Each structure stands twice: as structure tokens, then as C-alpha cells.
């Protein structure tokens, strides 16, 4: 026992250790233990990170897709809005054309009205004349 302990001390002095299974170790068993634990944990962490990355990647591509959709919709909306604007403009132009045509018709109507009035006057004159003529006879 004592021998072992002494050997231990000598080993420690040269920086070597024996583990529980009396195998020769460079690191202290406790440290070795913790190191391996750390290693395990690291591996676990890397796995998790990897998983997270794939999840995030999926998310990003999804968001990208969404943004594309949104962009498309936006363009559509703008187009529709422009179309609407141009239609109002078209309508305005059409309205103007129709107004011009209406003015034209109105002047024609006015012309016909004047003609009609003149004819009415002639008719009245003629009736007067006939009446007068009959009276004088």
C-alpha cells in the first residue's frame, strides 16, 4: 500500500498518474474525467447547433418565399391601382369625347329649333293672311 502510495507520489512528481484501473495516465483522472465529459457536452452542443441551423435555414427560405409572394402581390396591387387610374383617365377622355359630341348635337338641335321657330312664324303669318283675306271678302 505504502509502496503504491510512494510510487504514486513519484509518478505525480514526473507528471504521471495512475487511474482507478491502475493504468498509467498523463492527466489527472479527475481532469480526464471532466475533459471527456466536456467533449461529450461539446458534441451534443454541436449537434444542437446543427439542428438549429437547419431549422433557421428552413425558416429563412420560407420567409424568402413569403417575401417573394408579398412582392408579387405588391406589384399586382400597384398594377391594379395604375389600371384603375388609367381607366378613370380613359373614362375622362371618353367623357370628353362624348361631351364634344353632345355639344355638337346641341348646336345642331339649336339650328333645328331656329328653323322650326321660323317655320312656325311663317305658318302664323299665313294663317293670319288667310283669316284677313276671308274677313275682307
Amino acid at each position: 500500500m505504502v509502496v503504491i502510495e510512494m510510487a504514486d507520489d513519484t509518478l505525480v512528481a514526473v507528471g504521471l498518474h495512475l487511474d482507478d484501473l491502475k493504468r498509467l495516465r498523463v492527466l489527472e483522472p479527475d481532469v480526464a474525467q471532466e475533459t471527456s465529459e466536456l467533449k461529450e457536452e461539446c458534441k451534443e452542443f454541436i449537434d444542437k447547433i446543427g439542428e438549429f441551423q437547419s431549422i433557421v435555414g428552413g425558416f429563412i427560405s420560407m420567409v424568402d418565399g413569403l417575401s417573394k409572394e408579398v412582392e408579387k402581390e405588391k406589384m399586382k396591387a400597384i398594377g391594379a391601382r395604375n389600371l384603375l387610374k388609367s381607366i378613370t383617365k380613359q373614362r375622362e377622355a371618353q367623357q370628353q369625347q362624348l361631351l364634344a359630341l353632345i355639344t355638337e348635337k346641341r348646336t345642331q338641335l339649336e339650328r333645328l329649333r331656329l328653323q322650326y321657330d321660323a317655320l312656325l312664324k311663317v305658318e302664323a303669318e299665313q294663317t293670319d293672311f288667310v283669316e284677313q283675306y276671308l274677313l275682307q271678302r
Partner: protein
Amino acid sequence: MRLKTSLLKEPKHQDITCCVAWTSADEVYSVSDDHVILSWNNFTSEATKITQLPNEVFPTDIHWFPRTTVMGKQQSSASDFFALTATDGRLYLVSRTGKIEKKVEAHRGAVLSARWNHDGTALVSVGEDGQVKIWSRSGMLRSTLSQNSTPVYSVAWGPDNNVLYTNGKNLIIKSLQAGNAKPLQWKAHDGIILKADWNAVNNLILSGGEDCRYRVWDSYGRQLYSSSTSEYPVTSLAWTPDGELFAVGSFSTLRLCDKAGWSHALEKPATGSIFNIAWSVDGTQMVGACGNGHVIFAHIIERRVEWKQFELVVATRKTILVRNVTDDSREKLDFRDRIVKLSMAFNHLVVATTSQCYVYSSKNWNTPMIFDLKQSVSLIVQAEKHFLLVDSIGISLYSYEGRFLSSPKYVGLRANVLNLQTVSLSNDTVAVRDKADEKLVYLFEAHSGKALSDKPLAHKMEVVELALDQHGPMSERRLALIDKNRDLYLATVRTFGTAHKVMKLAVMIQSMSWNDDTNMLAALQDGRFTVWVYPNTAFVDQALLPKTITEKDSSEFGKNPFIISFLGNHVTLRRVDGSLVTTGITPYPAILHGYVSSAHWDEAVRLCRFVKETFLWASLAAMAAYAKELATAEVAYAAIDEADKVNYIQYIKELPSKEARNAEMALFGGSPQDAEGILLQGGLVFRAIMMHINLYSWDRALELALKHKTHVDTVLGFRQRYLVKFNKSETNKRFQQYAEGVDIDWAKIEAKIEMEEQKEREGKRK
């Protein structure tokens, strides 16, 4: 009247169409910025490619070399080609097949327009460099007419080789003769003028510009019409060749207007701006060059003619609908070809199509008289017994049975510029105003087509309008004419060797028309509507003329109305705004004319007694005096308180011989020459001498006395008495000479006079 337009679904040109032109009645050439010249068939609207111009040629205008008519013969110009202007500053002469015959460096910057004059002897071109250049037929530079600081956008030839061109907001007319008077220039628009046109027939100018208006001017630069502002600038306008209508083009707008300026119809086709408008030769079809590469075709439909109870409408190109308003019966007239002109008057409808002439009687719409035409008709004028067709070659008269009668012509006749104001027809006479010298009126016998006299009637001023009366015997034909000062004159037509007598009727006349069934003349005169019941009064008793008119205020017809027709007792007028108005006159003048023409003088007097109007009495007085119906004349003059004339007529009635009475009536009408002629013909020499003595025309009296070797002493005796009375001494050489050899013995003279009177009385008894 409106335009019926047709437009293809897809434009045939790849780029804007710049200019268009008619080659024949049914073919159109169009040129575009895609460097292609297309030929269009008007019926099928099919376009075939003529040629591809070089890539650097961006055309601006094309104009066909005119088919010239010289002395009534059509010269089918073998060199069928056109002038094409382009933005590269060159002027191209291009053949019908599209081959560039000649290429001339014409302007710096773009050449904007080019126009041939009416006989093709000169071409005028204008460009962005502000120059106006004149070229020969073969493309040699003749002269630079004008140089301006701004681009000249449009140019047009006037009727007398004057050039009208635009300069910014101004219009300028410059004569081709060097060193001539200052060019006429006036500000025509508030924006830049883009287009101007000048019609040779009516001599009116048309302009349109960026101020979105179009305006009509006369050749002195006076504005006749100004349109209201529309939404877009006026980019094109063009007169029809006959000058009755014009078309105005702007952005997606096409307007058809009357020559007075008011608009017949408006179309809104999807064309973009219409850059150029061209009318076909017959003036019924037009074509426009559109900004979106289209070529728009249009033809006039719904042309309307009214005559008495008939209403005619050209419904389509080849059909006319006739409606009789009194019984509402309707007829549909179909034609093989396109209708070019129609005219209805005197119970006959004359329709000219592109190849034939149809004559319908209003009693029978089923069987027209048809004959073939060689040329496209530009004018139809009707009289009661026959009608007249004007085409580019000349004037032809036809009877209503379709028989060719005659073709009046004179040296220098330009038939294609005649219109209703410058040619007139009556049952026996044709009157045509000359174009080269507007003071001359050529008169022809209708049936033979021969000139009435060697020399034409020469008025002292330019004649702007003429009209022949329609009734009465041939020898009493009268020509009414309006001159440049708007004075109205009445002239005798058949003069039998003597000069034409021309009497002034009125001043400031805007428009006139003869009645269709009596010789009444209606005119519009500065705010008044006037009817001369018997215009011939001017030659019977001029002092009476103002009393023979019936007037009314014409303010109800607006400013500057125009008389369209004077049928029966109805006058139709066109107001400035284009509306037709009708007004009536009393029916009595027509009845009076009826009685007088059938020599029912008693009824005529009874009618006047019944109506009790001065103008009617005065007209009757003139009519009776003209017909030498002394009893009626006496009554009529008495009724209008002309005591002196009544006295004179009574004196005439007492005269023993017929010749003496006729001569006195001629004196009464104020024409001593006629009176002398009548007396000498009747052998009443003494009376003729006495007439001249009484008129104090001593020389003529002495001349007659010497010629007939009688009463020389009588003349000398009266001359002496006259001199003594006025306390004068003899200064007339001839009287001095004859007075020496003759003794004046009053007893002898009186005895001779007594003897003459005795002789005359005895002559009557025999």
C-alpha cells in the same frame, strides 16, 4: 350631312402616317415614318406596298403633280409623279411606281411642305429654315420668295398665283411677281399656325393652329369665322375642291364644316392626331393620315336637299331617299355608282354619279333619263327648261330629256373654279364670270352655246356674284350682279349691238336671289331684307324704283345671313351659325305678276285697289309704263300721287301717232336715244328735232335738221330765242356758221310747225 368613317382594326404602317394623297377617284397613297409608301384601294381598304424609301428619308408631305386642263382639253400627263418632302432637307420627285426621279437639296433642316400650283408650272416648298422657295416643274430652283426667322409649317397657292404661308402666329400672302406690293401679313392665331389652306373656287383661306382653333378668312385677311377652342391643337385642315366644305383634323377628332365655318358634324375616331387630310377630286371622300399609323377613310353621307315639298337625303354612297312632305310618300333611288352631286329645282332632280347623269322628273321617280359622263361633275345649275353641268373640261348644257344642247366656251375658261356665284343659267342665256379678269361677264345663247356679242360685258369693278332672271321673254333678260364693293347692279343682257345698260339698284348687298317663278329679286342689305317686286323699273322709271320694294328687318336672322332660295312666296336663308330659316313675303306681288304677264290689266288694277299698298301700285305703274299700257299707268301713277307723271301720260295719250306715243314713253323712261330711233324710224323727223330742241341738245338737233334738209331755220330760231333768254352770245362754231346763211322768220317757222302738226294728224287719220 356627316362623315362616315372607316378604319382598319390594325394599322398597316409600323410608325406614324405622315401624309396622304389621292391619285385617282379611288386610290390613295400614304407615306409613313417607317419609310414605306402604301397604295390603298378605297373600296376594299386593301393596302399594297409601292416602295420602301431609303432609311434616312422621314417624309413630311406629298403632293401630286396636277392633271392640267388646257383650253378644255384634258392632258393626261404621262409623267404621273408627285413631290415628296422629307426631314433630311431634300425635295424628292417620285414617280407613280415609287421610283425617286429626282432629289434636290432644298432647305437647311427639314422641308415641311410642298405644293404645286394649279397648272403645274411651279412648285413652292417651305422648311424649318424659314425659307419659301419656288421650283420649276423639273425641280430647278427659280427663286427664294421669302426668308423668315421661324420655321414655315404650311403653304398654299392662291387663285392668282399668290402664295399663302404661315410664320409663327402670322399668315402671309405674297405675290409671285417680283417687286410687287408689300406682302399682306396679319396675326391670325394666338398659337403657332400649323396648317393653312386656300381655295381657288371661293377664294377663302383656312387656318388652324396650336391655339386649338380654326378660322376662315377672305383673301384680304378679314376674319369671317373663328371656331371656339377645342381640347387639342388643330393639326390638319383641307378644303374640298369645290370650296363648299372643309375638314379639320386634330387629336382623335375629325370635323366636317361648311364654308361659312359652322360645323356639320364631328367624329371621334381612335386615330391619334390626324396629321394630314386630303379630299378626292369630286369632294365626296376624304382620307386622313393618323398618328398611330392608321389611314382613315371617310365619305360624306346624309347630304340633304330640299325643294318645295320634296326632301332628298343621300342615305348611303349609292342611294337617295326622296320624301314628298305633302302626302308623305317615299321613294328610294338606287344608283350603280357613287353619287357625286345632286340638285333639285324646277320639278327636276339631276344626280351626277361618277360615270352617269340621271334626270328625274318629280312626277315620275321610276324612269330617269340616263346618259354617260366623261368627267366628274363639279357643279349642276338648273333652269326651267334645261340644266348645265360643269366638269374640269368645260360647261355642257343638257335638256331634261337628256339631250346635249351646247357647250359654251371662251378663251381662258377655267371651268373647275366655277361655282353658283360665278355661273348662272336661264331658259335662254348662260352667264359666266371670267376668272382671269373678274370684271368680265361672258354671255352665251343657251341653245347654240354661241356668245351673245363679240365682247363680254365689262363691269367697272370685279364681279363677285351674278344671277340671271328666270322669266319673261328672251329680249327682256336681265342680269343682276354684285361687285367687289357689294353694290347691286341690274344689266340688260340682249343689247342688239348697243352697249349693255347697267343700273345700280342698291349698295351694301350681302346676298341676292331671283324668284323662281316671277322676276322678283330678293336681297339682304345691311340689316334689311329687301324684295324688288319689279326690278325692271330701273329701266322704265328709275325714280320710281325705291317705291317698288317691300322691306323687312332682317335682324331676326342674325348677322350676315345668306339667301339660299326664293321659291314662290318663301325665302330660305342660312344664318351664320348654319341654321336654315324661312320667311315669307305677301303673295300679292306674285299675283300681280301673273295678271300683268297675261295682260289682264283691269284685274291688276283691281288687285292694287284691294291691297292698297304703295309698292304694289308703283310696281304696276312701272309694269304698265314698260308695256305702254297708258290707261293703267295713268291710274297707277295717280294712286301713288305722281301728278307730274300723270299729266305727262295724259299728254302722251293725246298724241296722234303711235310712233310719237312710243317715243314719248321712251323719253318717259329716260332714254332719248331710243326715242329718237323710234321717231326717225316712223319718219317723224320734225318731232325728233323738236325733242332735241326741248332737251337743249342743240348740236344733235342741228345735225338732224341738216341731215334731213328740213327745219334748219326752226333749230336756229329756237337757238336764238334761247340765247336771248339767257342773255348769252353764240359760241358754238357750227351754229355761227349756219346762222349766217339763214334768215329767221318766225312767221314762216310757225307756219311750218303748224304744217307738220297738220301732217301728223292727217297721217293718223289715214
